[in-house]
């Protein structure tokens, strides 16, 4: 079936299920409202929890007087930070201990580091009682110095966000003792970074100072690159802080039963959230039951659900009753995570032909007060990959501030890197008289393109890149040349402009497990540990298994969303890795099932396994003759036992998978396999993004007239879901151009944009009605199914293509930070120069 908006293209040529549309099994529940999200669950005797949030951006809680609150009828328990279990170390699958960060974020605190940080929680018989109890609590707070602007804390004598500094410092791991276990990674420490007055004075008006940074890498001869350049641009740009704004806030219900904690919440990753909860609560993962059937959006803020769900779990234990914690939109704005803004200064050299000969990139990441996000480093890696500069230096500092904690948000760092780089490429093309598509075609990665610094004499490389083809196909579908040539560009008060952007992000990991059960009724049960985060990968990847086994989709069932239902070791759904990682695991598992079916046929019907084929719900002898139905084969598997029905398992499976498979043993044919397929390179997906805008120069208002995202995302698994990701994530990026942001009052360290109508995520009416997408459908050569992930790669292009279309319409002297709202445009057009405050945080 061809998809609307997809250029009439059909996908999945030669496949039965892969590349085809189908109604997903969660569809009806979602559109009819029957789907049960965390807040929809109820438990007998359930209490409600409310949070007391810090009114100050940095303070020490000297005393909590909760006597009046506890005296209120209906108040059952109050939880404070000293009742939290100590932060627990994490153990990786290869046995390395990651030491807990004693200065990392916890669910409650006695030293709030941002305004809105939870200090304590109250459980009561209803929310009204809990709220009134909060109001009866007296806090004695000692205000401490604070800072919300990363450049302010870098100034000499500038305030520090934490009592001991403004950056994280990581000491190297101690050397391993000969023959001993791998040494544990020590926790990071807080240090101080200050730039000199001379650094600030030397920056020049509106330019980011370039003081020393804790991190740096380079490759190639930077100075030679700049010498070769016909054009060198040196630009400062600021990207916005944006809350994840999931429609479902991070509410959770928890209760304890027979020593186990049962948690109901929305998470991006079902299987992997269990060990996370166990770590936060200092429990054995076997004592955690997680139910997360539906998740109302994550975008990186709920990769393994939020640390905040510790609160109802501990309150429940303390009160001896189930506790529901419903998070309001304002609370979500504080604790719900956000993308960090990057301030970037990039010096970029272009040859006369437009080839990027050198990039000197410095970025400052506004991290918030807690654990460091990787956006600064990702921005450098993605710029290095996506524009293939002949020489590059990256420098970065991730600076702590008293603002709500950041986390990965769709294409973390990559999105910001693209947004820092793209306007420079667009400007260079105008200066050099080059077509915008042509200059990107000249610089973009191809094949096993290298990226990043040299490590031990080698640079990393990608599995494959066909971005040139995506640019060509996208330009054709968007009628790029026709739009560029169209005149007049201005009619009345309205000006049109077109923009193109490259975009990419990581798109896959390896090494996870799959698990399926073929029952004696001939049905296949796929055990899915993937979270149902709205991308449909929770179900989509299992179409691969059904296709390999020749089973009609109607005879398959996908089990998801409940950790007590025997789910295998699965990747987290973050970093757009799921479709790649879990189609590989699904492939390996289906091949294991097929081999077992062939062996069962051989044992039952005679001959060697290689004589048998699996198709059309049968195992049959090649060329005709004896056969078994899958139902009969499942009965034989139970009779034969051992490796066939899950009683003997492959030793390379993860212990999580082994436990799940053992629980299924004896119920039919059990197939379980680890993805051990080779891979050469780091998997990324790529997008060419095209936008046309129309600006009214008398109001500064603009609208996005048209948009197209064309993807190089490997084999297409599910076109409709892919289209949803290509365009949905593009819109997430567009929000960063159109108006989404944080606004702070710097004097009080207070976030002002706490509601949707302040922070302004884009609505359906802010984007074109009929956006288009397409995909090359070229298999990635380094994975058996050919599919790569796609969630994050479109985000950067969604934003940057609009920025580039705006400067095409209005010229280069209009904006120097995103978002670009009508006030910025109108003020700049009036003044003839950019009028946005160049570097100030949170305006």
């Amino acid at each position, binding site marked *: 079936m061809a998809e609307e908006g997809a250029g009439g293209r059909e996908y999945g040529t030669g496949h039965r299920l892969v590349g085809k549309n189908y109604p997903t099994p969660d569809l009806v529940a979602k559109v009819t409202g029957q789907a049960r999200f965390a807040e929809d669950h109820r438990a007998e005797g359930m209490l409600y929890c409310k949070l007391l949030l810090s009114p100050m951006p940095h303070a020490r809680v000297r005393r909590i007087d909760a006597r009046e609150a506890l005296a209120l009828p209906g108040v059952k328990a109050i939880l404070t930070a000293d009742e939290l279990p100590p932060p627990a170390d994490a153990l990786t699958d290869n046995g390395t201990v990651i030491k807990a960060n004693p200065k990392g974020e916890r669910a409650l605190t006695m030293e709030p580091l941002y305004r809105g940080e939870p200090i304590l929680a109250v459980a009561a018989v209803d929310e009204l009682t809990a709220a009134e109890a909060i109001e009866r609590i007296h806090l004695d707070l000692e205000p401490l110095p604070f800072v919300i602007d990363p450049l302010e804390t870098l100034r000499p004598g500038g305030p520090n966000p934490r009592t001991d500094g403004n950056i994280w410092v990581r000491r190297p791991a101690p050397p391993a003792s000969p023959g001993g276990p791998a040494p544990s990674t020590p926790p990071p420490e807080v240090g101080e970074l200050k730039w000199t007055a001379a650094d600030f004075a030397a920056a020049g008006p509106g330019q980011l100072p370039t003081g020393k940074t804790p991190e740096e890498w380079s490759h190639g001869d930077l100075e030679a690159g700049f010498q070769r350049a016909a054009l060198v641009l040196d630009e400062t740009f600021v990207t916005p802080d944006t809350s994840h704004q999931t429609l479902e806030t991070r509410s959770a219900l928890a209760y304890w039963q027979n020593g186990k904690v049962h948690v109901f919440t929305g998470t991006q990753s079902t299987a992997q959230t269990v060990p996370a909860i166990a770590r936060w609560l200092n429990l054995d993962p076997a004592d955690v039951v997680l139910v997360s059937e539906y998740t109302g959006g994550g975008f990186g803020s709920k990769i393994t659900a939020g640390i905040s769900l510790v609160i109802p779990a501990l309150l429940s234990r303390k009160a001896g009753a189930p506790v529901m914690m419903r998070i309001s939109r304002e609370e979500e704005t504080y604790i719900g995570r956000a993308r960090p803004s990057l301030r970037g200064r990039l010096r970029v050299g272009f040859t006369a032909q437009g080839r990027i000969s050198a990039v000197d990139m410095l970025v400052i990441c506004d991290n918030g007060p807690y654990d460091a996000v990787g956006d600064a480093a990702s921005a450098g890696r993605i710029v290095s990959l996506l524009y293939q500069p002949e020489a590059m230096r990256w420098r970065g500092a991730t600076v702590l501030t008293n603002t709500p904690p950041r986390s990965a948000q769709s294409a973390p760092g990559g999105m910001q890197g693209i947004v820092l780089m793209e306007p420079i490429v667009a400007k260079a093309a105008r200066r050099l008289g080059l077509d915008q598509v042509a200059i990107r075609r000249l610089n973009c990665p191809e094949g096993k393109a290298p990226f990043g610094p040299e490590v031990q004499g080698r640079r990393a490389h990608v599995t494959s890149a066909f971005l040139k083809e995506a640019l060509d196909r996208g330009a054709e579908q968007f009628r790029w040349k026709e739009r560029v040539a169209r005149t007049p560009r201005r009619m009345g008060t*309205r000006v049109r402009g077109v923009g193109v952007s490259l975009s990419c992000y990581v798109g896959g990991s390896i090494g996870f497990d799959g698990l399926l059960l073929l029952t004696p009724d001939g049905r296949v049960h796929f055990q899915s540990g993937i979270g149902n985060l709205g991308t449909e990968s929770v179900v989509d990847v299992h179409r691969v298994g059904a296709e390999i086994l020749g089973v009609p989709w109607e005879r398959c069932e996908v089990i998801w969303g409940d950790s007590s239902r025997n789910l295998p070791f699965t990747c987290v759904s973050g970093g757009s890795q799921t479709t790649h990682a879990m189609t590989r695991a699904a492939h390996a598992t289906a091949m294991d099932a097929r081999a077992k079916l062939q062996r069962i046929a051989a044992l039952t019907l005679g001959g060697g396994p290689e004589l048998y084929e699996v198709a059309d719900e049968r195992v049959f002898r090649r060329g005709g003759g004896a056969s078994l139905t899958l139902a009969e084969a499942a009965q034989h598997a139970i009779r034969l036992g051992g490796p066939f029905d899950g009683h003997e398992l492959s030793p390379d499976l993860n212990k999580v998978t082994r436990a799940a498979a053992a629980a299924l043993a004896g119920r039919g044919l059990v197939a379980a396999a680890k993805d051990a397929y080779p891979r050469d390179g780091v998997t990324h997906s790529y997008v060419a993004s095209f936008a046309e805008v129309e600006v009214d120069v008398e109001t500064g*208002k603009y609208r996005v007239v048209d948009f197209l995202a064309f993807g190089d995302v490997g084999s297409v698994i599910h076109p409709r879901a892919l289209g949803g990701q290509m365009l949905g994530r593009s819109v997430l990026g567009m929000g960063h151009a159109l108006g989404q942001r944080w*606004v702070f009052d710097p004097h009080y360290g207070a976030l002002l944009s706490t509601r949707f109508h302040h922070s302004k995520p884009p609505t359906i009416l802010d984007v074109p009605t009929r956006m288009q997408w397409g995909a090359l459908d070229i298999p990635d050569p380094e994975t058996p199914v050919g599919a790569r992930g796609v969630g994050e790669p479109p985000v950067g292009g969604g934003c940057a293509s609009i920025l580039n279309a705006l400067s095409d319409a209005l010229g280069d002297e209009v904006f120097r930070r995103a978002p670009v709202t009508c006030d910025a445009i109108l003020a700049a057009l009036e003044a003839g120069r950019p009028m946005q405050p160049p570097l100030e945080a949170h305006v």
Partner: protein
Amino acid sequence: MAVIRDVMAEFELFQPSSVADVLRLLAEHGKDAWILAGGLDSLDWLKDRLRRPRAVIDLGGVEELRGVTETGDGLSIGATTTLTEVVQHPVIRRRYGLLSRAASLVASPQIRNQGTLGGNLSQDARCWYYRAGWPCYRAGGNVCYADSPVGRNREHAILHADRCVAVNPSDTAPALIALGARLVVQGPRGERVVEAEDFFVGPDVDITRLHALGPGELLTAVRLPAEWADRRFYFEKVRDREVWDFALLEVASAMSLAGDRIERIRIAVNGAAARPLRLPQVERAVRGLPASAATGELAGTLAVEGAVPLRFNAYKVPLMRNLVKRAIGGVPEAPWPS
């Protein structure tokens, strides 16, 4: 006392079925009473626990407050008529298109289905300091947080600020001023009818509210005179998002022409000050002039005289100038092929 901005505090709910009962309840409960219509403004205040009325008087059951009736001289619109009903009413669409256009740009379809015309007119300021419970002038304190050296005031006033720099958020208010509407207010001393422009007050008159309703008074209806029906109308709202957003600035005008010359005009803007501003200086200056771009330029320049921008809202000066200009001179069409 710690602060929580969630969960409505308890109150007693009254659901009267007549205006007389509403007035009686208002008299009975005095300062403890709160009038609830669509709830789009009220429920924010209540759920943030910043307003704690003891008696909430729900107008939803008062039939006489609802609906549109034709009168000898135009239309009468009940105060609890929903914005969607205002948008869709055939006579309003046909003869008072300015109002249906303005109402159609309020917030979002869901909010227009629930929100009422009276509520849209009498809603409170949306300044994010004030609405977050900061103890500012408007809240009875002695500071304006938005008008401070680092205050965030992109959405705030450029005209007639007096201690407070909040703006009036109503989209229908400037349209009603341009249409010469009169608002019917009932109270303890009976009924009074006020010109739409006189219904709104700035901080110089009363810094604690945006309208002129006295104690125990209720806005019951909006009367649209026939005099300003069927004129040449212009309405433009500039906002960040195309739905679910307050105006950064908006203009409404009704014009009668003799040939190409402006015979009479009423023009108002909102988003510039704490009250919707009728622009009499513009109305006077353009009378008798052609409705042209040049007249628009003159009008725009006059409109912004005396504007005092804050740190982040200087853009509102050219924006108001250009919107007034367009209201008079029109906007050239730009029909590109898409």
